[in-house]
């Protein structure tokens, strides 16, 4: 049975997963959820994803949610095809986990909240608090200054090879201009790194919305 991804065509976390499906050349069926109808809070949905969030994966009855966990599962299951996204050596794995943790605690924490405040709230008819956005961007910029240093010595966040940790940055990194921040492009090494990610066919295929391949 083909893998089924239940998500939203415009959701950042859904795009994170689909980009990895494409990198690993894995066909999947996409079942779109309509946020405006509250489909993600319906009992049938919450039976599979108890936090009422998108996306989740159904692999022939085996359910996984949390986009980064789904990505890791796909990268592990299809390790032998498509782009290698996980190191196998112990120390390289440690450095990969370091990079994955950096993405969560030093990037996503600020970028996703800024995106919510500046981009998603207006879509929901709510008012943006600009002081919150400014504070988040300021903190993000301090972290990106460290990225600038790290990426001056190596090509990607975990070393010289691309890993999932780099790809995890795509959805919210790509939204920063819409938030009103040019922080990535203002830093030469960060820009070089991020632009190499957005130029990948897998990202180009999803950046404007999800298309089904199975």
């Amino acid at each position, binding site marked *: 049975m083909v893998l089924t991804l239940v998500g939203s065509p415009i959701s950042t976390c859904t795009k994170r997963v689909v980009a990895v499906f494409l990198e690993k050349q894995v066909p999947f069926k996409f079942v779109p959820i309509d946020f405006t109808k509250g489909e993600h809070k319906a009992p049938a949905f919450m039976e599979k994803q*108890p936090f009422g969030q998108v996306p989740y994966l159904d692999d022939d009855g085996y359910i996984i949610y949390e986009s980064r966990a789904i990505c890791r599962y796909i990268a*592990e299951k299809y390790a032998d095809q498509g782009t290698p996204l996980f190191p196998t050596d112990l120390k390289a794995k440690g450095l990969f986990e370091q990079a994955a*943790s950096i993405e969560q605690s030093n990037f996503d924490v600020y970028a996703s909240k800024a995106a919510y405040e500046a981009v998603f709230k207006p879509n929901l008819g709510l008012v943006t608090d600009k002081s919150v956005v400014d504070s988040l961007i300021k903190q993000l910029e301090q972290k990106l200054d460290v990225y600038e240093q*790290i990426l001056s010595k190596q090509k990607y966040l975990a070393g010289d090879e691309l890993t999932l940790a780099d790809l995890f940055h795509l959805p919210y990194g790509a939204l920063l201009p819409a938030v009103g921040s040019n922080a990535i492009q203002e830093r030469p090494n960060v820009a070089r790194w991020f632009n190499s990610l957005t130029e990948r066919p897998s990202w180009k295929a999803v950046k404007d919305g999800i298309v089904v391949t199975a």
Partner: protein
Amino acid sequence: MVLKLYAAPQSTASLRVAQVLHEKNVPFEFIPIDLRAKEQKQAQHTEKNPFGQVPYIDDDGFVLYESRAIGRYIALKYAGQGTAGLIPDQSDIKALALFEQAASSEFANFEVHAAKIAYEKLFKVRLGFPTNEEVVKGAIDQLNVKLDVYEGILGKQAYLAGSELTLADLYHIPFGTRLYRAGLGDLIDSRPNVAKWFNSLLARPSWVTIKDGITSTA
């Protein structure tokens, strides 16, 4: 050469790593970093952890930072000793993915909110800054929603990734205990399954040994 842990005795992230070292019976030398003196922002430290944070380890020249990454590295390197299964084996990718789901949830659904509470009600107060009660209330509201989901999950299984303890459970302890220090222990205590799970984690010798501060074991 014995593993070196550069950390602060009571920092949540430092405690996270120290607990895993104890669970896996890995001897370590604890080198305290003085956060009040901002030692973590000095060049000698930022050369190893460019984000100027604690902890980091030096494992015979191999330097690693980010507490959750260090915990994972220790669990993988010493898979054959101490508490088993803290990360499910790679040969069972479904169990591994359920662990990743729980680990992702720990950060995105728990820490994000619990850390805000700890920052506003403990850290800022210690430094003489006023608490932003609106931020605290928002975080409490979110945690209530998330912990209701935890209550449901833990009604069906003993631990967050399934029937076995994993790092995903342990990683909740540092900020979980800070909720109690902030006077909000009821968030956990009012939910029977969550309380039972959390108390079982606190009772582990690895936590009891370090909860009042980290010390060297080598």
